[in-house]
């Protein structure tokens, strides 16, 4: 660390961050460094053409990409007490909240919608990383619970897009309590025999993975997402070793049996629609589903 990284880089970052919905902006692929036109990326569901790097996707864009006709009903969530701990670190928690609300236009990190996905009614919850790192506090916890409850009421599947750095530390123990609380919601959906599908996006770590994000009937991960309980930095500090290549990435989790599939964003909608229809025994829909796996010719019996 030196003054360049401490002072200059954050300032540059601030300058970039202040421009909302930039027009004519070129952005750099974090993976390959190639420069791409922002509008092309936006039109491609925030996947960088060429490198196929999946950028983070905001809650509204995500709901738009999922629901038929890009329309849905917003689901309201009950109010939660504001900052009962009167918490402050370097800044007041209430100030941080205010900033996040201004920046994102959201009330908190989770947005809920009820609408049709390929004709089938579903409830979708999206965690937005831009809202204080998608952190799980009382408001996000209530939203997840409300999403699960609405699905039970409507008799529909619940799809959750997870993206979070973990529990919201500014809410202390009340944030930790969202682990069991959301789990109660998951159990009620399970008892109603309705499907719960989790889509793990970059990044999903901490308390969110230790509760509702790892309790789905089906776990789907977007390519290259960081998914894990402890963050890589904490692990490195604990074991004082370099972490293996690809550690805690989607493909790694698939290999270790924690997710069912890694699905590129362009195929996500069709995959989700198909799964929801299969698990609710609905008729096949119209969304283009991925082609059936190619039949492999059986190996000829060997008569050695």
């Amino acid at each position, binding site marked *: 660390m030196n003054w360049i990284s401490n002072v200059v880089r954050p300032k540059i970052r601030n300058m970039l961050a202040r421009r909302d919905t930039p027009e004519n902006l070129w952005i750099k692929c974090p993976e390959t460094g190639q420069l791409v036109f922002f509008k092309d990326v936006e039109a491609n569901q925030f996947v960088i053409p060429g490198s196929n790097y999946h950028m983070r996707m905001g809650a509204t864009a995500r709901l738009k990409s999922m629901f038929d006709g890009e329309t849905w009903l917003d689901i309201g969530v009950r109010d939660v007490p504001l900052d009962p701990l009167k918490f402050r670190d370097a800044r007041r928690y209430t100030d941080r909240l205010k900033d996040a609300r201004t920046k994102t236009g959201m009330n908190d990190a989770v947005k809920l919608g009820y609408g049709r996905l390929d004709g089938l009614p579903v409830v979708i919850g999206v965690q937005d990383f831009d809202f204080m790192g998608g952190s799980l506090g009382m408001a996000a916890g209530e939203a997840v619970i409300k999403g699960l409850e609405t699905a039970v009421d409507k008799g529909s599947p619940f799809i959750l897009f997870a993206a979070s750095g973990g529990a919201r530390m500014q809410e202390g123990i009340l944030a930790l309590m969202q682990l069991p609380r959301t789990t109660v919601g998951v159990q009620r959906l399970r008892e109603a025999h309705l499907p719960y599908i989790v889509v793990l996006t970059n990044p999903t770590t901490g308390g969110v993975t230790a509760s509702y994000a790892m309790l789905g009937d089906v776990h789907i991960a977007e390519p290259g997402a960081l998914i894990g309980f*402890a963050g890589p930095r904490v692990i490195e500090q604990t074991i004082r070793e370099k972490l293996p290549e690809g550690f805690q990435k989607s493909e790694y989790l698939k290999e270790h049996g924690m997710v069912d599939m890694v699905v590129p964003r362009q195929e996500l909608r069709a995959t989700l629609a198909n799964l929801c229809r299969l698990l609710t025994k609905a008729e096949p829909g119209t969304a283009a589903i991925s082609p059936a796996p190619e039949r492999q010719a059986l190996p000829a019996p060997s008569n050695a």
Partner: protein
Amino acid sequence: MRSYLDFEKPVAELEAKIEELRALSATGDNGTIGEEIARLEAKASGVLNDIYSELTPWQKTQVARHPQRPHCLDYIAGLMTDFVPLAGDRTFGDDDAIIGGFGRFRGESVCVIGQEKGSNTEARLKHNFGMARPEGYRKAVRLMEMADRFDIPVIGLVDTAGAYPGIGAEERGQAEAIARSTDTCLGLGAPNIAIVLGEGGSGGAIALATANRVLMLQHAIYSVISPEGAASILWRDTTKAQEAATNMKITSDDMTWLGIIDGVITEPAGGAHRDPAAAIAATGAAIDKAFGELNGLSRDTVRRQRRDKFLNIGRSL
């Protein structure tokens, strides 16, 4: 040899003086020394009570982590008879950070599951300082499911800085293992009680602490992240742990007004480590009372009450 915490220094000095006088009185008989010892002992106990009646959250953190504080195995030895420890998750291995098994509490069958930190260097290594891996939580799930099948109540003894952050633990699904353990707690038709004995650290704690009754020792702490972790992440300064401990609200008093716990177990004067037997006995009485309240409820009621309790947390603050 007693180890003293830095804020216990006035007591340490008095107790050292008492020791000196005792040694002196053993060599030559002197009536006034006995009186002096009694006077100093009274003074030491007064000072100790004063200090412990006003512990700061950071001081409580140190008490909660005191190496001589009674741990899970001490409570099992003190409160249970016929205890049979069981091992393994039937999938990968056994995890000594979590002790689990069946025994009798006040003559009745119970299942006990808890984190053990270890009381000496060798034991601490064996139990991985009470930081469990997925196998530990999967063993807990296995034992809770077994207990529930036989309608046997479950006691969770919580004492961990958190789940272990390591490569193997991540590979084998630490997050999923914790989530399933909490899930299993919430599904039990048999009543369960959890006691935060020392440190209730984050997801690693809640996995065993999702119970019909959650109790906490007076000087234990319960938090979403360790004060050091919060200092490092929120303040980006590890020296701010004391401030983090205060601002995060982690003491048993805080847990009471926040509605997180159902009761506080009073510790003996000067903390549980000064009189482990008394702390263990008080805990036994509290467990007994809590099970008494849950006695005779139907399995559905037990499950519903537990879920409603957690859903209501924070809603009326």
